[in-house]
């Protein structure tokens, strides 16, 4: 009897996973972030990642099911005032938010709540970075200048154009789509990957500001494509949002639960 409420919670999770999940094998790879303890080498357990970013249609289902995440009800500590402001109403999408466009203007709190309701969690930065290092044929394409240039070309596109629908870009080596060229994405631990607000400080960073393992710096200064993603995330607070920032969920495999 005690398990029943939990089971009831899990049932609505169906329908919140959109294009479904793909499994990534994990293993060791080199992060662009220079972690103090490992020098940047990161080992990941196998995990599952949503094939595509969460869409407006999927997020609409979520706020209908959990009305406390509707824009007129959410506490301002969890989402700033522009939360889902491009939707026609608290429970309708309208012309500025097409069903298959990635949902944006969502705070980290809202994104986390969505993934939780879907029986999942946000990916860690390392999981995201690992998945996003791939191109269509290689698991790690990051050293290829052409690959970097392709990512940078997204920054050259004006941001006042409507977002494309999800699933338009070719799947990468792992079968994941839209990691580049569509939206920024929240990560679970984004708040611990602070880069200095002033990019030019070298040795003098205020180390007290960055606790423990979070005290990291950019190791690969040539990799602007990733550097900019880190810069964007580090400018955000968890209630913040932008018109280009969406998310997708991840699941751990070994434990069976998030």
């Amino acid at each position, binding site marked *: 009897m005690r398990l029943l409420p939990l089971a009831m919670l899990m049932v609505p999770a169906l329908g919140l996973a959109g294009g479904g999940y793909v499994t990534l094998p994990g293993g060791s790879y080199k992060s662009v972030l220079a972690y103090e303890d490992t020098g940047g080498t990161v080992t990941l357990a196998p995990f599952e990642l949503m094939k595509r970013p969460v869409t407006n249609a999927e997020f609409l289902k979520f706020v209908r099911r959990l009305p406390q995440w509707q824009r007129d009800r959410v506490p301002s500590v969890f989402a700033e005032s522009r939360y889902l402001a491009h939707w026609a109403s608290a429970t309708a999408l309208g012309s500025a938010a097409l069903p298959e466009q990635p949902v944006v203007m969502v705070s980290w709190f809202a994104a986390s709540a969505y993934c939780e309701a879907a029986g999942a969690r946000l990916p860690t930065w390392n999981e995201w970075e690992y998945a996003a290092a791939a191109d269509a044929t290689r698991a790690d394409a990051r050293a290829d200048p052409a690959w970097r240039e392709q990512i940078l070309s997204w920054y*050259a596109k*004006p941001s006042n154009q409507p977002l494309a629908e999800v699933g338009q870009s070719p799947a990468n080596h792992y079968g994941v789509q839209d990691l580049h060229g569509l939206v920024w994405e929240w990560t679970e631990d984004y708040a611990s990957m602070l880069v200095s607000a002033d*990019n030019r400080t070298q040795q003098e960073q205020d180390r007290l500001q960055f606790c423990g393992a979070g005290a990291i710096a950019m190791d690969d200064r040539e990799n602007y494509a990733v550097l900019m993603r880190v810069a964007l995330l580090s400018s955000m607070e968890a209630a913040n949002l932008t*018109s280009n920032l969406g998310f997708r969920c991840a699941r751990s495999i070994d434990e069976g639960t998030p």
Partner: protein
Amino acid sequence: MKTHTRRMLVLVMMLTLAACQQPAPVTAAPEDTGGSAKGDFGPPVGEPIEAILTAPPLVPPATGRKQPAKVVVNLEVREIEKEISEGVTYTFWTFGGTVPGSFIRIRQGDTVEFHLNNHPDSKMPHNIDLHAVTGPGGGAASSFTAPGHSSQFTFKALNAGLYVYHCATAPVGMHVANGMYGLILVEPPEGLPAVDKEYYVMQGDFYTVGKYREKGLQPFDMQKAIEENATYVLFNGSEGALLGDNALPAKVGETVRLYVGNGGPNLSSSFHVIGEIFDKVWFEGGTRYQENVQTTMVPAGGSAIVEFRAEVPGTSVIVDHALFRAFNKGALGMLKFEGPEDKTIYSGKEIDSVYLGDKAASAAPVAAAAQAAATGALTLEQQVKSGEALFAGTCSTCHQSNGAGLPNVFPPLAKSDYLNADKDRAIAIILNGLSGPVTVNGASYNSVMPPMSQLNDDEIANILTYTYNSWDNAGGQISAADVARVRAATPRPEGAAH
């Protein structure tokens, strides 16, 4: 004995004093402003003032204030696609919607409440480092602002001068390469001397994936930026920003002051105005000026204030005197001076005669053609050879010996649609000159070609025959009779040169 000792003492003291005074002129520089230590004139007086911000090339009016004030600056960051060259666009990141960013003008001792507003459509977080700020990062860490947010910080402007501001968000080089820089002028307490015209000119280097003038939306090229291999070097963020109708106007007799900055990110500027001598240069944007300067160095992240008087009418061209940047990467601007001629200062061309130096041998075809024309036996080949020699002496200075012209300034004759479209028009242009806008091979030009009144009908016919039979042009032959017909039909305008 006593008086003698006293005299000796006085003498010794005088000697000592003289010895002490010796180094004094070296240590105490005259007219030292005292820098930041003497730049605080106390708390702001009166109601806060909203700063007037101007888009380039305009400059806000002098503050005209005698007391320190609280000045509120609201600067908006926008990421926008704009033309960098004709038919070429680029996504600029801007302070205030322009490259360079809005000009800010305050007075030394002012307290500035700075609001950096990052537009909700932005993809990136941004911040601002003002070189006029005394404090860590110049405001950068205090102004790190996510899209759709606004940051506020306050500083007191302790040093007078012309300062660069720029974005300092990771990756800094890219933010600056995309146009995130501008100028803030901190007037000295007494203000700057009044002048007739003030303009804002700022150089920057740009790195695109496509080649110079390759059409379409061009993305940033990181590798070229790291290699400092600029695709464009520009004044005020686009190739035409200060050309043609956008030339900076002044009247003869007026004193013109340019606030010059260089955003970089990489290249220093050898700032020069063709046909002008800077009467004064506040070098490095600081307190002192140098006089009578031809070219002043403006480093990346630095500035200069230059001043000169417009003495004669005409167009003066602003360049980075590292000349391939000027003629092959876009570092050109124009000042247009209007007013009466003063032939005692500058005569204009008084005599144009063919001088061929050690190529004098090539004058032979001209003589041969003249002789053949007199006997009525002139061949196409003779005309072309004669025309080639005449072209080298008269036309190649502007149109270049390969007929390619100079971008934005002198239109090409090679493969020229404008030339090939109308032979009578070509004759008329040599006879009467040409001024005003024309479009040649898709590019627009707005310069002045004087009438070539020194050429006779034979010479014009030979020059044009050479031109039409060179550089993939349409071919054909122009006769002296053709020229005579056009000459008769198009009377020379009154007051044409010569």
